[in-house]
């Protein structure tokens, strides 16, 4: 199955700007992208629509990781997925150029909470996206107990069309 993830350059810029804002104790910021989906010939198209940053007060103070979301952050994201019948992708940024990668911590943490979205939206895929300053990588879950699949293609659409 090929999963193609797309977002506009405008939205990407907004996400990067807001993720780079300093936080009083968290070393990095995270958020969620609410997405819509459509079927393609051999997979699906995931289309990011809106960015929902985790609120300042919803981070936990944990210096062993860049950012630790508290239960309120997850609960609000689940509520959003339920209310809007949308697919949800967790997003954060690695501050460098070139293709980023999921660290062991990134993988372990996302694998813990992303499957929970199937409790509220079981018919839609959910996942996680890591942006760098000029690239991206992502994982997509197609079921609560399925292993995640890598995003086969990521596109940023705007006056420059970036295909990753």
């Amino acid at each position: 199955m090929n999963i193609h993830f797309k977002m506009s350059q405008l939205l990407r810029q907004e996400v990067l700007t807001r993720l780079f804002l300093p936080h009083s104790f968290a070393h990095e910021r995270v958020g969620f992208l609410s997405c819509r989906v459509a079927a393609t010939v051999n997979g699906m198209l995931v289309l990011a629509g809106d960015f929902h940053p985790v609120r300042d007060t919803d981070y936990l103070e944990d210096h062993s990781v860049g950012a630790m979301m508290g239960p309120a952050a997850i609960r609000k994201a689940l509520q959003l997925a339920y209310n809007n019948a949308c697919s949800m992708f967790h997003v954060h940024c690695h501050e460098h150029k070139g293709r980023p990668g999921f660290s062991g911590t990134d993988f372990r943490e996302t694998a813990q909470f992303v499957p929970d979205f199937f409790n509220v939206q079981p018919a839609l895929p959910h996942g996680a996206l890591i942006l760098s300053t000029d690239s991206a990588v992502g994982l997509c879950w197609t079921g609560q107990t399925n292993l995640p699949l890598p995003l086969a293609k990521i596109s940023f659409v705007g006056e420059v069309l970036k295909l990753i």
Partner: protein
Amino acid sequence: MNKSTLQRQRFLGPNSDDILGRSRIGVVGLGGGGSHIAQQLGHVGIGHFVLYDSQSLDETNLNRVVGGTEKDVSHAIAKVSIARRVINSINPHAEITEVQGLWQTQPEPLRDCDVIFGCVDTYQGREQLERFARRCLIPYIDIGMDVHAIDGGFSISGQIALSLPSRPCLWCMGVLYEALLAEEASQYGAGGGRAQVVWSNGILASTAVGLFIQLVAPWHTQQVLPILLEYDGNTHAVNSSRKERILRRMKCTHYTADLGDPFFTLTSQGDLNGDQNYVYDKSA
């Protein structure tokens, strides 16, 4: 494509061969405009094509369809098959999805395209294609030409429009408007086609391909991507529309932010486990 085939276009960037080779391009309508576009995209090294046209070649097409022959007319060869033959004669490795039919009946291959070229005859066709492209965040490049009777002869004109998500649409540009669609609907079924000529089709198609390349492999850091270009076939000039400055400040209100297929469910997607288990990056 062979590495040396594209060496004369390396100024498009060190990764341009790869970007173009990975691009999946939809061409809807393979008549006078679309056949030129398909041929040029074959030359620049596009790796994946999705081609739509419901018609077969007839003798009235021979004045402009690139690659079309008398033999094709006598065998009633589909226009999509002619385009495939032209592309494959340039790049035998290009992957081509060919649909002899309306795109609306098989939209799935089109959804996965990185860019769609609309080379359709009708305004309603343009409206539907642009709406579809917006829902899937696909840049849409529209070309069209017309010939009007004026005092003392005829005027050839046309346009090349680049419709990007969150930028002005064909309605904002004035390419589409209600009266035009209503007039077209009132003439539905009327015989006779619009006047079309190969040289004007070629100019519009070449400019459209140039816009596409500028989008995926910009060759200048200060590039300004046009929104609407107008073609005057009597002076043989292509210029930015006089509306361009207004369009640059305009926020499109014709399309909402609706994306994707509202009826999509995972249960209709077959095998979801796949075989591409992810291994995390131990160095990250």
